[in-house]
C-alpha cells in the first residue's frame, strides 16, 4: 500500500495508527519530556512521508520509522545541549521530571533517568531500547546502524556507569 501512489495516503495512515504509540514511547525515553517527544514523532512522520520514495520495502516499516525517530531524537538532544551551554544553569533532570505533570515516577525513578541522561547519546539510547523496551540487539542494530558487538559493549558500559552512579550515592 505504501509503495502504490493510489493507496499511499491510506497506507501511511495505517502505519501511523499502528506504530505511532510504539515510536512515541521509544522517543519519550530518550528526550524525556512529552512536548519534545511529540515534536519528534510529528517530525518523524513528516520526514518519512516526504522520503517515502526512498523506502524500498526491503526493511520493515517499523524499523525504518524507528531509525528516523531515533535520529530525530538524538538531533534534538544535541540541539538542547548546545542551547544549555549558552543559557543559565538548568535544574537537574530528576527535579525537572518530578515537577513534570506527565511523569508519574518516584524520586528513585527520576534519579535513574538522571543517571541515564548523563550517558553519551549512543549508550543512553542503547540502554533505553534494551533495558526498558527489551529489544534484541539485532533489532537495535538495524535501527541504529551499529554492529551488535558494539551495541553489547555500549550496553555493558552504560549498565556499569549507572550502577556506579547509585553505589556512590548509597
Amino acid at each position, binding site marked *: 500500500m505504501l509503495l502504490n501512489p493510489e493507496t499511499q*495516503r491510506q497506507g*501511511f495512515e495505517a502505519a501511523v495508527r499502528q506504530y505511532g504509540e510504539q515510536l512515541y514511547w521509544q522517543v519519550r525515553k530518550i528526550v524525556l519530556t512529552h512536548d519534545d517527544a511529540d515534536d519528534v514523532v*510529528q517530525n518523524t512522520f513528516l520526514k518519512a*512521508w516526504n522520503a517515502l520514495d526512498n523506502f524500498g520495502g526491503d526493511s520493515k516499516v517499523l524499523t525504518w520509522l524507528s531509525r528516523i525517530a531515533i535520529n530525530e531524537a538524538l538531533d534534538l538532544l544535541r540541539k538542547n545541549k548546545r542551547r544549555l551551554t549558552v543559557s543559565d544553569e538548568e535544574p537537574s533532570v530528576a527535579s525537572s521530571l518530578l515537577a513534570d505533570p506527565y511523569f*508519574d515516577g518516584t524520586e528513585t525513578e527520576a534519579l535513574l533517568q538522571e543517571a541515564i541522561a548523563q550517558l553519551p547519546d549512543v549508550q543512553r539510547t542503547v540502554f533505553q531500547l534494551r533495558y526498558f523496551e527489551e529489544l534484541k540487539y539485532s533489532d537495535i542494530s538495524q535501527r541504529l546502524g551499529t554492529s551488535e558487538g558494539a551495541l553489547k559493549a555500549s550496553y555493558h558500559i552504560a549498565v*556499569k556507569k549507572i550502577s556506579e552512579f547509585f553505589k556512590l550515592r548509597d
Partner: protein
Amino acid sequence: MEEEKYISDKFGRRNPFTVPEGYFEQLTAQVMNQLPERRPKARRVWMRPVWWAAAAVCALFVSTAAWLVIPNESKPSQGQVAEVIQQSQPDDAYFDAAADYVMLDNQEIYACLSDY
C-alpha cells in the same frame, strides 16, 4: 550480569512517563493533517539493458553496411596498386643511359656538341 540485576532489583522496568489524556487517540489525525500532498514522482527516462544491446547491434550493422556500400575514394583498387608497384620498379634502359651519360668525359661532350 551483576550490575544489570542491581539496577532491575532497585528500579524495576516500569515506564514512569505518562501522556495527556486522549493523546494517542488524536495522534494519527494530527500527523495526517500536517502531511502535504505528495507530488507524483517525475518519470525517469531510461532504457532496459536489452534495448541498449539492440541499439548497439543496429549501429554496428549500419556502420558496416555503409563501409561496404559507399565508394571510398581514398581506398585504392587492386589495379591501381599494381600500377604503382610497376612504376616504382627500376627501368634497366634508363639506368644504362644514365650510366653512359655520367661516364662521358670532356672530349666526348665536345664531340657531341659539335654534332649540333
